[in-house]
């Protein structure tokens, strides 16, 4: 694996950092496990429609806050 947190944007223009969104997209893509059972829905909403307003929170911010022992800052989306 090379540079797993480095996004490769081809012909794109959305910046240099992979967003937290991409991480959650992949980490949660197969569903989550609660009480030993696989669930694919959260908050009564199919995970397919789950969206977080942390779009602009870059991994870098998340990691910095994790290192500082703080809570991830949630920035308003535009």
């Amino acid at each position, binding site marked *: *694996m*090379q540079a*797993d*947190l480095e*996004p*490769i*944007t*081809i*012909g*794109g*223009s*959305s910046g240099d950092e*992979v*967003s*937290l*969104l*991409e*991480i*959650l*997209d*992949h*980490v*949660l*893509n*197969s*569903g*989550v*496990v*609660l*009480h*030993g059972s*696989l669930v694919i829905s*959260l*908050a*009564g*909403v*199919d*995970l*397919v*429609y*789950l*969206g*977080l*307003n*942390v*779009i602009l*929170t870059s*991994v870098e911010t*998340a*990691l910095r*806050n*994790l290192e500082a*022992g703080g*809570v*991830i800052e*949630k920035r*308003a*989306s*535009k």
Partner: protein
Amino acid sequence: MANTKVGTAEALYLYGISPEVKKAGKNTARIAASGIDGVHGVDALPCGGFLCWVSQVDQSAFAKALETNMENLDWLAEHGVRHQEAVAEIARNATIVPARFGTLFSGPAALEKNIRSREKALNQVFEKIADADEWGVKVFNERQPHTPAVTAAAATGREYLQEKAARIKRRPESSNEEVRELGDALASVARDSAPSGKVSGGQVDLVWQATFLVPRKKHAQWERVLREFVERWSGTRRIEVNGPWPPYSFVGDAG
């Protein structure tokens, strides 16, 4: 090993499973990433003929609060990143079948029983994911129609999600021939593909996205396909690719 008890207040959080390495010393590989709870480290536990990557977590603070916490977006973001950090670090050194987020066991005995019951599925997945990485691909329209942001006034995570869901359902299905052509071209290079975008599905101007399992030795071919479409779509559509990821989306029954 099977009867080793974790303290009654502890549970085991599973990140993923690797083939057991017989060579002395290898099984005790140290993972620098902090565990899912930010307190306990990540351990490699030989288990049922495999190597399980686990952390101890507190029963009441972590395990029992998991369901509530999954609706807390700050919590989910922080722990999702920790999960990714640990799995990615392991994946740099070993083949790993990533476990689904939130996979917990009461202790090593329960874990081992589960692993043994999935032995066949696990071996099939190891074969499938060998020497391949997961990549995400997104296609955006370059036009920027005004789309109001989901209101920041949603009082709870649940309200926010429901609002977002309603909005995504209003979006017309993309049945564009050319976009399908890209999907087919990528799928012909990839070993497997899966739908994606459970979280980022609400991005403005996103018209299509999918996740692919791409053999490392086919990477140049994969990039050629992408570049061809980037040139063809210049000014009309934008392609974003993210990866390489551990094969989160391709674990099937084994995850």
